[in-house]
């Protein structure tokens, strides 16, 4: 049985249907990303799974149960990062995690968690004095205190600096390998592509597309390959008369249709420079999928609502 199962979910908020017939499942050890513009229904779907909202119709099952029932047992088995807030501003990371640890029957070690999310240097600093990115990492650590089997992360990397993102990605990877089922939301395509095993693209409360990133990206507009880091991107781009990018060290994207001649030319270019080719795939950029999806969309994406910083007293 899947740890997360959503079936024909319809959720109404303030009289308006926000989620309109969404279905998907997620397995243990899998990262599922809900992707979509603001107002697509991502947070509403997650908050229904977390037990905050009632489905109007359809069903949500977390670990085989209705998340609103047997709340105490359910809450010991799930971890939650809200879209914003959720921290006592006057508490330091260590203090907050020790408090949260007292709620759970078998908590993780707070000091270890602080180290895991890379906050050891600021373990004793009140949350209100931490950067936005540090606060998101603290929120992630708080979600892990109960050693959850299912983790819900609503925009875990929004507003987080690159260093913080690396730390969060490393934690997510580690949890995935430990068999945790992770549902995250994001409106950032690259983040979703990097983190997720399974993507569900929402638009206007419905599933626009779903599948493994590789499947969604099968209709290729781009060549992806892995080789030694630090290739001369200018020379490579010039050779093919297009843009070449290094997505992360040693992973490249070349904006050309992956026809046979181009692939042959690429391997030849690498061979001439004695560069070993580790991996080669034809890929469409996720952004293209996303934009195609939105083009059919009668509802234009709404502008981002202003984020409110935690207020001080």
């Amino acid at each position, binding site marked *: 049985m899947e740890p997360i199962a959503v079936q024909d979910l319809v959720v109404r908020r303030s009289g308006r249907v926000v989620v309109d017939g969404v279905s998907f499942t997620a397995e243990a050890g899998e990262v599922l990303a809900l992707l979509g513009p603001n107002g697509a229904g991502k947070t509403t779907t997650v908050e229904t799974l977390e037990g905050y909202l009632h489905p109007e119709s359809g069903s949500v099952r977390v670990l085989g149960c209705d998340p609103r029932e047997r709340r105490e047992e359910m809450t010991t088995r799930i971890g939650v990062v*809200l879209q914003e807030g*959720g921290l*006592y501003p*006057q508490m330091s990371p260590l203090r907050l995690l020790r*408090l949260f640890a007292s709620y759970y029957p078998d908590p993780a070690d707070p000091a270890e968690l602080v180290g895991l999310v890379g906050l050891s240097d600021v373990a004793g600093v009140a949350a209100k004095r931490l950067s936005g990115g540090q606060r998101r990492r603290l929120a992630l650590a708080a979600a892990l205190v109960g050693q959850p089997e299912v983790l819900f992360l609503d925009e875990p990397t929004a507003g987080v600096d690159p260093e913080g993102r690396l730390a969060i990605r490393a934690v997510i990877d580690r949890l995935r390998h430990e068999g945790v089922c992770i549902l995250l939301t994001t409106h950032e395509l690259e983040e979703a592509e990097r983190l997720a095993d399974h993507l569900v693209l929402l638009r206007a409360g419905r599933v626009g597309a779903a599948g493994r990133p590789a499947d969604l990206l099968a209709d290729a507009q781009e060549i992806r390959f892995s080789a030694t880091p630090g290739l001369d991107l200018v020379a490579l781009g010039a050779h093919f008369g297009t843009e070449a990018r290094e997505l992360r060290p040693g992973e490249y994207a070349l904006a050309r249709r992956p026809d046979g001649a181009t692939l042959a030319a690429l391997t030849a270019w690498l061979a001439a420079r004695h560069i070993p080719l580790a991996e080669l795939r034809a890929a469409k950029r996720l952004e293209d999928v996303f934009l195609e999806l939105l083009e059919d969309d009668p509802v234009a994406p709404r502008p981002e609502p202003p984020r409110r910083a935690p207020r001080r*007293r």
Partner: protein
Amino acid sequence: MTRRGLGHQMVEEVRMTLEQGERLLLTFVIPVLGLVLFSTTRIVITNTASRVDFFAPSALALAVMSTAMVNLAVATGFERSWRVLKRLGATPLSPGALLSAKAGAVLAVEIAQFAVLSAIAAGLGWRPHDGVAAALAAIVLATVGFAGVGFLLAGTLRAEATLAVANGLYVLLLGISGMMFPLERLGGFSPVARLLPATALTDALHGAFGPGGVPVEAWAVLAAWAVVAPALAAWRFRFAGE
């Protein structure tokens, strides 16, 4: 309801009250300063033999109102707006346990206030009649009523509005509850003022520690608030949202 986490939560609730300057000011500094200032000067004329006999029960009533209503409302209101209450809803700490921790913290702070204020009052020459049992009963009843009002504000208004309303109520009740001066001076308004929980508590404490005993109507008013205010709060309180 499991009680796991309740004790630790209560300790943190107390600690958050005592470590923040503005909350300490509200719960300890102002009642102590008021007690000392009004007991040792002739700013206000009282109806008791000794000035401290009037202002010691007043300071205790003010301390209870500050802790159980104002401090509780403002702290809870901001926890709600920071989404802390919502976040706790996804932990095994049940709403009942959180509420118990907050109630326990209020009582713990009140015990400390009682100890500090009665020690200072004794130093100023306060010699109360033996009304401690009645006074404690009145304080517990008043605490339940005040906490109900505090949770009602915190659970329905935005944090800033809660802050404003709680502080407004504080000033208003301080003025018309008989804490600052004998209630008879309000003239025709005093029967209305007697329906307020702060007035009933002040009356009860003046009565308990004075020669007269607690007036029946003070018990009735305190009991009514202790039932109605928490019921309203339970009905209207929203853990999340503005």
